[in-house]
């Protein structure tokens, strides 16, 4: 096997949450609020439910092929040529999400913190740091994530402090925007929660692969819940009309906290969490990209690919998306529906039809 490390379920859950949330907490509220207004929380409940379906789909597919990642078992299901093509599509997806995160990362830092520094500086540094973690393997990535989790406590504190600015009446009137708007608002968080797809690269390296269902469900539920709290925060503080005009309502929600003329300017806190979270998020997709490529090419070691993969990710994050990040955000979910939902579903159907993979005990019950 390419990866010798093993991670336990708790580590996997934490890693999955850190993979979904860092960009989601900043970007999702604005998009969801734009469509669903004060009913954004309903959108998020809907999104979480769909996310759970995706999680179930990905895990049931993966568990049919124990010890194999999605890159490896697509070949088993679809045959060599078609399998390679689909495998490549997944590698591309990981690369694309990864470089998209790099782009968001750089863009946020430039707009929120250091407008005079070229974006490429942030992207390069983020990729170099993630490369260091990726090179050292999945175990190190998970441990670094665990090390970072306590820092997010600061974010919780910032949230609690911001409750002083909240007005519950901003939630009214409930269910006013209509089902379509709520569904539209759910698309973007579904895309983010659907990133649980990356678990398909990690399941073989769990100490107990059987717990993968639990891992996926808990990760999606927790992420959806945090995302909902987070959207509510912006909503309750600014109201739907103000919040959806900003790119980063969460950031602003923390900025306006001011208690006793002492506890203020907490944006440094969110910056810190965001930067560290960004490293991890980039790291996970970077890892999936590198590991997937190595498996796709049938290499014995993925380490030689770390450097070229980083270059590809960095370059594409800079050139692929152009300047207009907002446009990218609104397109992104529709790009992701294919690899996150459609292909896994097709793969599962083909696998069932061909009788490929072992029948898991869970299916019988």
């Amino acid at each position, binding site marked *: 096997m390419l990866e010798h490390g093993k991670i336990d379920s708790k580590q996997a859950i934490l890693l999955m949450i850190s993979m979904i949330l860092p960009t989601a907490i900043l970007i999702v509220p604005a998009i969801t609020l734009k469509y669903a207004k004060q009913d954004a929380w309903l959108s998020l409940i809907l999104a979480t439910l769909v996310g759970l379906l995706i999680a179930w789909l990905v895990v049931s597919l993966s568990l049919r092929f124990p010890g194999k990642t999605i890159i490896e078992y697509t070949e088993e299901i679809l045959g060599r040529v078609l399998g390679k093509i689909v495998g490549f599509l997944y590698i591309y997806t990981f690369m694309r999400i990864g470089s998209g995160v790099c782009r968001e990362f750089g863009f946020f830092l430039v707009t929120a*913190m250091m407008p005079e520094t070229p974006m490429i500086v*942030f992207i390069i540094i983020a990729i170099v*740091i993630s490369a*260091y973690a990726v090179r050292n393997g999945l175990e190190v990535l998970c441990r*670094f994530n*665990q*090390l970072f989790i306590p820092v997010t406590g600061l974010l919780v504190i910032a949230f609690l402090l911001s409750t002083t600015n909240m007005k519950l009446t901003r939630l009214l009137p409930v269910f006013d925007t209509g089902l379509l708007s709520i569904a539209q608002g759910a698309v973007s968080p579904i895309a983010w929660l659907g990133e649980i797809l990356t678990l398909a690269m990690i399941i073989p390296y769990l100490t107990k692969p059987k717990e993968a269902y639990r891992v996926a469900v808990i990760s999606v539920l927790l992420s959806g819940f945090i995302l909902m709290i987070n959207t509510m925060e912006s909503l309750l503080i600014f109201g739907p009309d103000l919040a959806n005009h900003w790119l980063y309502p969460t950031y602003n929600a923390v900025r306006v906290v001011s208690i006793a003329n002492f506890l*203020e*300017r907490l944006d440094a806190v969110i*910056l810190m969490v965001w930067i560290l979270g960004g490293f991890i998020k980039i790291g996970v997709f970077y890892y999936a990209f590198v590991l997937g490529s190595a498996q796709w090419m049938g290499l014995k070691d993925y380490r030689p690919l770390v450097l070229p993969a980083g270059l590809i990710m960095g370059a594409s994050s800079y050139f692929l998306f152009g300047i207009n990040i907002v446009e990218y955000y609104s397109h992104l979910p529709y790009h992701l529906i294919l690899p996150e939902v459609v292909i896994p579903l097709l793969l599962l159907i083909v696998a069932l039809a061909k009788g490929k993979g072992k029948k898991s005990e869970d299916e019988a019950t």
Partner: protein
Amino acid sequence: MLKFIKPRRAGMMSRGKSQSRDERPTNKPDQTVTSGGSSKKQVLTPDLETNLREIKSILNNCSDVVYREFVFAQNEQLKLALIYTDGLVDNAQVSDQIMRALALEVPMSVPGQQITKARALEFIRERGLCIHQINESAQLEDIIRSILSGDTVLLVDGHATAIINKARGWEMRSITEPEAETTVRGPREAFVESLRVNTALIRRKIKSPNLKVEALRLGEVTDTDIAIIYIKGIVNEKLVAEVKSRLERIEIDGILESGYIEELIEDSPWSFFPTINHSERPDRVAAMLLEGRVAILVDGTPFVLSVPTLFVEFLQATEDYYHRFLFSSAIRLLRFLAMIITLTLPGLYIAVLAFHHELLPTALLLSIAAQHESVPYPVIIEVLLMEVTFEILREAGIRLPRPIGQAVSIVGALVIGEAAVRAGLVAAATVIVVAGTGIASFVIAYNLSASLRLLRFLIMFLSAFLGLFGLISGLAVIGIHLCTLRSFGVPYLSPLVPITGVNLTDTLIRAPWWAMFYRPRLIARQNQKRLAQGLKPSPPPSRRKG
């Protein structure tokens, strides 16, 4: 012939070459400078003169070795010779218990009876010597080593065996209070330079037959005694084997301090962080052993290594376990804070002043800006200037003789505190930051604070270039690096990462003794329980009922 006076081989220090040396026919590992003789082990002959000549030829020009020839009291014909190194033996014992006993005194039970040459050795061994510990050897190599280690060797004419008397005694520092690890409460004894005294200090704390003290000798020239100590039944046997194999791999001319060994056996030689801890306190080492660690004692130094080492150890002081737990926990948190300050405060200061003014309250910002008005340099230069000055002063304070050290601290205080600010070289706030960082660095264990002091400069540069982003990137790199580290197979950051719930009782806080049920799980693998359940003290039942 004699392994320990072998000349240093070319390429001995390089691992690859030395491992394969035995296979190479060209390299004669046993060749010596003094004699190009055969590589067979030399043994004594029955002839005293020959033996003496042989020993003298090996120990020629060693003016500290004393040869004393005399005649046996029981048999005028029998010649004896004592050989020892002056200064390493207890003179009173050698003269009274060996010389006097053999040359003058006649044992009561055999008055006037002659002891034949053939029986002499046995007689001397059984009844002639009043030395508590004697050995016998016929190997020249052993004998030479014994002489140089401080034993007194007795050669008997007509016998090819020498009697080695342990009558060691040399000038030695007595057991004093620990200097590097002082405490308010706790034992006030520290290790000394003598290995035997040190093992005794540990044995006095742990009187268990399971406390094993394995001996080893390292250093081709110095032939330094090493002891590997562990508690059988608690320690992980694989760990002991690993420690031994790493130690046996060492081929070096000399070992003068445990630091030599530390660098030769550590897991990550390039890391900034120490992956092997040391201590000069017997109670601390005993506590390490009780947690399943292995201690490595080196003759000639009071600093004892203990492996595996965890990162949290550097935040734990021995005293934490003696004070009440609430206070100890608070102090631990304080140390953790000090660690973060040591690493990040100057970087944070630079980042905020150079990039993120908005993070400071306006009043504070104005006052700092006013201070910086007269300063001609950017903040990074200013902080660097002060940090380097501070490091120089600290080094001067350590190296200088004690009386002058005070003068340095006065000059330092004046230079740092007063003159630099007055002259407009640095802002007063910079002085506060540098001084605060310096004091914080004194709080944590010296070897960790040394690595943090170095890394602090890295963080400072990153902050100067990229502000908070640089600072956090630097911390992330350090964090990832810490996650990759292992010490003898145990993840360096455990039990924090990967998290081991039951062991969190002894990390950033120190739980009360009645709640610390388990030894570190990843260190003591088989035998984890160290405490009975239900030891929490409670009032007697009669009271409780009311």
